[in-house]
């Protein structure tokens, strides 16, 4: 059984829990068994928050914490200075950082090899596409590109189907555009 564990580092209110949910739904649409859950504590807007995914090709029975993720997504780059975002990760863990930094600069901050570090300016992309800084959605596009966990077309279809229930066409389109842009613009060394 192949299980991929993902950890999201964000600040409360940035949509990381929603992003973990969308990732779960999109990977489930590809036939995977999925889990998505955050660490719950006192809920304060802007407080550091972790959320997790487990994605598996066989049914998942374990319900313990994710302690050794092989994929880490940093939604807010200010957390690089205050949180141990590499905690428990193997040396070849993949890091995706929302930042305007180059992968080399982000890798230096992480103390990891640039081979496994990717960056994308998801905040700028969401401002361009949606007029608001909601970086979680474009990050999923970048993740699709670098991890192979989810296919871009499946992600776009799932996202559009979900957003259509609540939002007008313009917002749906802005979101899917932001995913496509991040997919194209994610930087590697």
């Amino acid at each position: 059984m192949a299980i991929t564990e993902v950890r999201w580092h964000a600040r409360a209110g940035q949509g990381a829990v929603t992003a973990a949910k969308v990732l779960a739904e999109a990977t489930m649409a590809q036939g995977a068994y999925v889990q998505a859950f955050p660490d719950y504590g006192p809920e304060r807007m802007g407080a550091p928050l972790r959320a997790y995914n487990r994605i598996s090709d066989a049914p998942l029975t374990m319900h313990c914490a994710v302690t050794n993720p092989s994929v880490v997504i940093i939604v807010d780059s200010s957390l690089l200075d205050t949180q141990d975002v590499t905690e428990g990760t193997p040396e070849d863990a993949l890091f995706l950082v929302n930042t305007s930094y180059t992968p080399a600069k982000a890798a230096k901050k992480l103390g990891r090899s640039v081979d496994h570090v990717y960056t994308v300016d998801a905040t700028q992309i969401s401002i361009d596409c949606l007029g608001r800084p909601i970086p979680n959605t474009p990050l999923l596009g970048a993740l699709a590109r670098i991890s192979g966990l989810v296919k871009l077309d499946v992600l776009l279809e799932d996202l559009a189907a979900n957003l259509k229930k609540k939002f007008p066409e313009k917002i749906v389109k802005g979101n899917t555009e932001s995913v496509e842009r991040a997919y194209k613009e994610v930087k590697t060394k």
Partner: protein
Amino acid sequence: MGQQVAMTGNIAVANAMRQINPDVCAAYPITPSTEIMQQFSNFVADGDVKTVLVPAESEHSAMSACIGAAAAGGRVMTATSSQGMALMWEMLYIAAGNRLPIVLAMSNRALSAPLNIHGDTSDAMGARDSGWIQFFSENAQEAYDNLIQAIRIAEHMDVRLPAMVGMDGFIISHSIESMTLLDDQAVQDFIGDCITHMPLLDVDNPKTFGPLDLQDYYIEHKRQEYEAMKNAKGVIVEVAKEFTELSGREYGLFEAYALDDAEIAIVALNSAAGTIKTVIDELRSTGVRAGLLKPRVFRPFPAEEIAEALSHVKAVCVMDRADGVNGTGGPLFPEFRSALYDAPKRPLIINRIFGLGGRDLGLHHVRDVYGELQKIAGTGKIETLAGYITVRN
């Protein structure tokens, strides 16, 4: 059949309630209750159900309203958790003693103090002697399935007892996972119409509910409750068989996982059982004969069936995610140990209290427990009968 979805335990349970479409739902709709009631009140507001929703000012009042509605002849549900369950305590006995088949969805959460909101079974254990049937669920799928079956079991004329369906707070209630929803109509067909018995609203045949019942008849009525709980065992199995035909998913009084030929075994409720299964698969691949008994119901307590399932095992650890604070182990421990007292062969049994207030039970903790059981099975000696794990020393 059914629809594959990814949803939290809370939303899964709220959807079961939507598909059940009870006549009345009275609840205290905010914390300590979880999102179940928030989601269900959306269904009510959207007209997806015909339920009369009674937002009460406390859980004590919520259960009181449920009792009234059930006595009137309605199909009645509620949801609570933690301190809310504790505040319902007095009325739980009245629901059971009046033989009212109310069904309660519960996210099992710790009790204060210290103040904590996370998962353990302390809330349910406080209600274990109240006369309610108690279900426990490993994951969102089981919570959903158990809630649907609980309606049939509670309303069965050989039972007529209220039932509570638990799942671990946060670990299941607030976590998204893959599961399957049944079709709305399939759930309606499965549960059928509400089976009423001497409803108060049958005004042509007036009845009295809850009168004084002193030395003359109280004990006869309690005896009937005892018989009803005994009957529940058979009804639970019968309803589970029908549910398997509908869903393909199998249920019984407990789940025996890799237990038939096990030399060492763990007993655990709720989500911990899933984590334990992962370790069992790992141990089995290296030739260690490890198994699990996951109780689905704690009330009724299926003592004979448990004795039969565990008597061949050499060493057993009963794991409690609650402490009765009696100084000698958690609430499951004495009951499981006593179930084996009359068995011709019985295992050595230890107790470990774990995970209180949501403390994580990791794979390594479970490996350690099986390691200790292997040692006990080998030497025939127990070093520590009962104690805490997943704890700072």
